[in-house]
């Protein structure tokens, strides 16, 4: 018996842990991609239609803002259950990686949109005015001024969102979405195999650390200028 087995006596299938890791990464990657694709335009919309901004539209802003706030105020575990019919409609299953992605995205995109809005507000008003003076259209301002100038803040937002998503994917385990959370829940909680719990927690910590380090590295790279 090697020392690792002594420490973790119940773990007989490392392959299963490996598969769970891959599942978590797939859920994370897929949901992060979709979250950015949906949250970025939503954040730009919030920014542009806000009071005193480039296209102030108080009503549209109020509605979008309310919707974002509602989705953000529902705890993710509840949101997942509430969204089950929607999930089934969208991907044809409530389970597994596919079943996990719609609630993950719907939970994280409004969160990310707010971070995008905040990051865009950090862009100096004067730079926007200068580009207007140069004859830039709204689209050119968004594409060539706002997004590049805010990219440090945007990458910081993506990092924070990715880490929140790691937590969400783990919660998804409770209702059968697979991945490390599912493993911890089934073995660690339901079967009292606490060594599974330990391994899962360590893996999650490592994952979050890696994400934070990667994110920080990208942010510093862009913040330097």
């Amino acid at each position, binding site marked *: 018996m090697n020392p690792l087995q002594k420490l973790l006596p119940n773990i007989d299938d490392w392959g299963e842990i490996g598969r769970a890791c891959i599942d978590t990464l797939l859920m994370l990657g897929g949901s992060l991609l979709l979250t950015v694709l949906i949250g970025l335009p939503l954040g730009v919309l919030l920014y542009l239609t806000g009071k005193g901004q480039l296209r102030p539209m108080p009503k549209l802003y109020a509605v979008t803002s309310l919707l974002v706030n509602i989705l953000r105020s529902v705890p993710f575990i509840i949101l997942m259950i509430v969204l089950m019919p929607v999930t089934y409609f969208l991907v044809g299953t409530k389970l597994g990686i596919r079943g996990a992605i719609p609630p993950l995205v719907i939970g994280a995109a409004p969160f990310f949109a707010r971070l995008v809005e905040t990051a865009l507000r950090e862009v100096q008003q*004067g*730079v926007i005015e200068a580009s*207007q*003076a*140069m*004859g*830039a259209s709204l689209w050119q301002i968004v594409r*060539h001024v706002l997004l590049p*100038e805010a990219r440090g803040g945007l990458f910081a937002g993506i990092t924070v969102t990715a880490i929140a998503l790691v937590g969400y994917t783990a919660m998804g385990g409770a209702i059968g979405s697979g991945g490390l959370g599912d493993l911890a829940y089934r073995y660690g909680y339901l079967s009292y195999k606490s060594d599974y719990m330990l391994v899962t927690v360590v893996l999650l910590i490592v994952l979050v650390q890696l994400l934070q380090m990667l994110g920080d590295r990208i942010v510093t790279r862009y913040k330097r200028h």
Partner: protein
Amino acid sequence: MRLSPEGHISAVIRFVDVHKSYRVDGRDIPALQPFSLDIADGEVFGIIGLSGAGKSTLIRLVNLLERPSGGTIFVGDTEMTALAEPALRAQRRRIGMIFQHFNLLASQTVADNVAFPMRLAGEHSASVLRARVDELLARVGLSTHADKYPSQLSGGQKQRVGIARALANRPSILLCDEATSALDPQTTASVLELLAEINRELELTIVLITHEMDVVRRVCDRVAVLDAGVIVERGAVADVFLHPQHDTTRRFVNEALPEEAASELAPFAQVPGRILRLSFRGDTTLTPALGRVARDTGIDFNILAGRIDRIKNLPYGQLTLAVQGERVDVAMAALREAGIEIEELPR
């Protein structure tokens, strides 16, 4: 400044009965009282005023970053106030603008900042952009800084990048929004020199706003003085500078001439004789008229204050004298004859 064949000033920017107010909490707060103003092709036109006088609003009316509440604004033959959004954007590309805080893109290199307005205008050929950027950076003296980022430059260098960027699309007008207010005196001087050079060599019309009379004195041909949303005085810089009419103008002039301000406070009552202020302009500054007239008419004079300087390229001098003698009026006539302007100051 260029004249039309009939000898009229050809205006490149015209404000006709323009006014502007802001709506704050349901009430209209006036920022600029109704005014009309012509800015001539090729001149450097200064607008001076304290903060809150409305000068940044006024300069933003030219490219319609601020829309007037009423009135018409022409740039060249185009009625700016009648343009729809796409046509307005096209016009704005013909009007360069530089800013107090430079407003460069922090995420882009110097070269990309300068190329930015050309890219916005649809120029994407790398060789065309490169050539034009090189030419512009050479003009502003930053050829070796093309690949740096704005954060690596000094304030003066950033403003030079701003100027290069503003010139990229070969505008006919350059708007300067407090362009030197964030710079130290030496850097201010070199940036103003660059602006004057651009005005001369590219025959570009420059409109600048400032709160420093010294900036006006160094580069402007004409000036308008703005006080609480009203243009209280306007004219050739030498006229306004040597003979300010309005209190606000006097305050600005005195700021630029500290000696003069002190002499205003001097106890004239203790000096015998009449107090005269002599203004010399151009060649009269260099002729020894005062000594000759004094000898011929037998007057005595005592110099209370004086200075010699330049207004743009025009040398000028101003002397405040206490004059005694029987033939003071004859002397004054002789001095006027010699092209010297004389004001008698109240004692």
